[in-house]
């Protein structure tokens, strides 16, 4: 599968072929600009490949019509380096927002949101606003929001990029716990510490090509 952005001199991803099984925990590593983040965008159907196919949950995303995209995205959770929380809503409201805008009732939110906030270790901090939480806690809210809908896949784009090493490890424990519930986790990172500690599958990308695909790998 190949993806070239308009105006780019070389493909962002060049003839890349990867298969990730259900329930796996995969790291994509590589230097900036290597094409790691393009993988996330392809999986989210934010961009489509120029050549080849993207298949998610045995559905061909490549040919998916854009009006089907919203429903498709409900099976994928997303976490980013910059958290992307709504600053004028509390932790609880941020998570509940994700449920309510896809049509879940307030009653469902009242039942599910405290549960998932408890799971990410934010019990008791439901009514704090993002600016009243530490970076690690904000990322936990983001993880809770991504997971509250019980997605099949959790995509994490450098989720520890803004966090100190100790906090990063806590977030990784959390992602590991989510992975153990059967959720596939795909994480893009260049945090070597974390990759080396976790000892999971590592796919290294350089200049748009896969240079290494190793089970229980290290950063290298």
């Amino acid at each position, binding site marked *: 599968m190949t993806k070239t952005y308009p105006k780019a001199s070389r493909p962002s991803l060049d003839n890349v072929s990867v298969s990730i099984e259900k329930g796996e925990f995969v790291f994509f590593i590589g230097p900036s600009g290597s094409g790691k983040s393009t993988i996330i965008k392809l999986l989210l159907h934010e961009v489509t490949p120029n050549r080849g196919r993207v298949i998610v949950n045995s559905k061909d995303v490549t040919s998916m019509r854009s*009006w089907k*995209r*919203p*429903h*498709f*995205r*409900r099976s*994928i959770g*997303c976490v980013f380096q910059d958290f*992307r929380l*709504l*600053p004028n809503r509390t932790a609880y409201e941020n998570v509940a*927002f*994700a449920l*309510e*805008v*896809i*049509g879940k*009732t*307030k009653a469902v939110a009242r039942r599910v949101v405290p549960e998932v906030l408890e799971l990410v270790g934010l019990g008791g901090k439901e009514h704090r606003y993002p600016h009243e939480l530490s970076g690690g806690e904000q990322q936990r809210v983001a993880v809770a*929001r991504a997971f509250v*809908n019980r997605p099949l896949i959790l995509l994490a784009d450098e989720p520890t990029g803004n966090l100190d090493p100790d906090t990063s490890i806590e977030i990784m424990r959390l992602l590991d716990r989510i992975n153990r519930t059967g959720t596939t986790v795909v994480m893009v990172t260049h945090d070597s510490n974390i990759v080396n500690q976790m000892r999971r599958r590592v796919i290294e990308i350089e200049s748009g090509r896969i240079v290494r695909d190793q089970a229980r790998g290290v950063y290298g």
Partner: protein
Amino acid sequence: MRLKYVLSEVLVGLWRNVTMTIAMIITMAVSLTMLGVSGLVYSKVGDMKDLYYKNIQVSIFLDGQVTEQQRTDLQAKLDSDPLVKDVIYVNKDEAYKRFQEMFQDAPDLLSAVKADSLPESFRLTLVNPEQYKDIYNQYKDTAGVDEIVDQSRLLDKIFDLFTAAQNIALVAAIAMAVAALLLVANTIQVAAYSKRREVAVMKLVGASNWFIQAPFVLEAVVAGLVGSVLGLVALVGLKFFLFDGSLSALQGLFSPVSWGDIFLMFPVMAAVGGLVSAITGWVTLRFYLRV
């Protein structure tokens, strides 16, 4: 629940950007008022054409030296003409009486004109008023005929005037509608920008497109509908102060604008206001939000 969410978002959105909302509503209102005026003129001109053309007459004025024989011949010819529905002969006395009635407010003019100086005439009602030309050609050289005057010529000029007024109102309506359209587009861009974080999260978690777009589009529609209500108020004001007020002296000349006419314009204005806003809003979002 979702409906309540959408509605509260609409109100919050309109209020957050209240100056723009007001500008949008005012331009909408002016545009729709113009549209309403144009529609009213259009329907009134139609009514009046029916009314006037039914009673329209062609006058054949006879010259002063007309003989008894010539007049009788002409009368006989007119009576048997298939283009003519009805003929009335007006002698000098009757002409003077009509003249007196018409100019009763101008005694100077009345005293200056003697009964004798007004020409006798035949007043014809035509089967089809548009066949005036045929009548004219047929009788213009007949002995004793001085002049043939067609009232419909005059009326055409008046109706041309109405049509011009209607076109001006329509052009103004369109110009204001373009301004309103741009304001709607701009307002929605601002609204989408101020809610970009929410929109990004909604897209990410898979909120449906209509759910993301509805608050923005409805904001524009609400403004359009409020604008049409204000337009209706303006039309009511127009009737009250203009048609029933300063122009009421001309009531005999114009067919009256009834309250029914005005309230019948409202659904048209509301539909145009609402639809234009909705379509503009939706198109803007397609470019700006790319949901």
